[in-house]
């Protein structure tokens, strides 16, 4: 199997095997990001499919300014952000704000009280509740294991911005996970 660039060239020449190889090489990373950003497995699958379809259709315009995976991550992140916003808008139309269940601010710290599965669920829930810019940097940095510089390239923002968002995201997560133990964020 060739490099990404070779596979892209073969795909553009109409080689369906190259197209399949390109998808299979990156599908875990794209799906994992979608799953972490959207939560729901079906929604993540749809987002991953949409990401690949869009990417394949616009590959002729890929200039190689960054690696293919960075370009694909950017596309996946944008697709997930758009889907996430649509979902939020749908929900806000379906359930009036006054009827929505308020966040449980008084929940006790459960770090040492619950099983691992529940702790993971709690962590994912806390990440899911973060505002979009923080959720995206957490997903790219921790779940996709990209460096700060790589996250900056994907999001097309300065590395300092990524670091600041990560720092603030960690503070917000700590507050959500340990409402009584975290310090106030300035």
């Amino acid at each position, binding site marked *: 199997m060739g490099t990404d660039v070779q596979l892209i060239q073969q*795909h*553009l*020449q*109409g*080689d*369906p095997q190259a*197209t*399949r190889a390109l*998808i*299979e090489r990156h*599908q*875990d990373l*794209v*799906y*994992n990001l979608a*799953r*972490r950003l959207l939560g729901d497995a079906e929604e993540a*699958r749809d987002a*991953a*499919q949409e990401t*690949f*379809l869009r990417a*394949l*259709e616009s590959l*002729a315009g890929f200039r190689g300014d960054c690696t293919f995976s960075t370009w694909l991550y950017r596309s996946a992140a944008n697709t997930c952000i758009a889907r996430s916003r649509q979902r939020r808008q749908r929900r806000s139309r379906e359930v009036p704000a006054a009827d929505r269940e308020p966040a449980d601010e008084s929940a006790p710290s459960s*770090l040492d009280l619950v099983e691992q599965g529940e*702790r*993971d669920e709690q*962590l*994912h829930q806390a990440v899911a509740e973060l505002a979009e810019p923080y959720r995206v940097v*957490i997903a790219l940095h*921790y*779940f996709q294991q990209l460096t700060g510089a790589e996250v900056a390239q994907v999001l097309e923002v300065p590395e300092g911005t990524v*670091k600041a968002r990560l*720092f603030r995201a*960690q503070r917000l*997560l*700590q507050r959500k*996970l*340990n409402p009584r*133990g*975290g*310090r106030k964020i*300035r």
Partner: protein
Amino acid sequence: MTPYDDCRPFQDQFGDYLLGRLSPAEALGFAQHLRDCAACRQALALERRLRAVPPVAAPADLAAAVLAQRLARPAPSGWIRSTLGNTAADAAFRTLVDPLLQLDLELRGAGAPLRRLVAGALAGLQSHLYREGNKLGQRLALPLLDASRQVRAALAGPPMPQ
């Protein structure tokens, strides 16, 4: 408690600390800070939890689903020519059309009946391609149909004597 901003240099080092990338001097300073700072211990525990989240594998049929959806979508403008068109049309010419063009050249002096026979065979090929196109998807069949139409047009040439 340590002022919030004082912790940031240490918290920026969490990744390096967990991956064992700190120098001995940095590791010592880091450990001392951790001992004194409950907030950083808590933050480090969160860092560990985030890094320990296992990756989720894509569904096994994701690539197949993308390829199927791609075939089902209407072709964007210029898509056939830029991708399938070039290769499929070239292949069609090489395997189907070139031999027929060669046959046409050889039949130039052979008279109308034989030329009509070849034209009829090409019409049959076209309808076969059309039927197969419904099965294989129009994207694959269109370049082949296009190629066979060109051959028919070439074969038609000047009006054939009756």
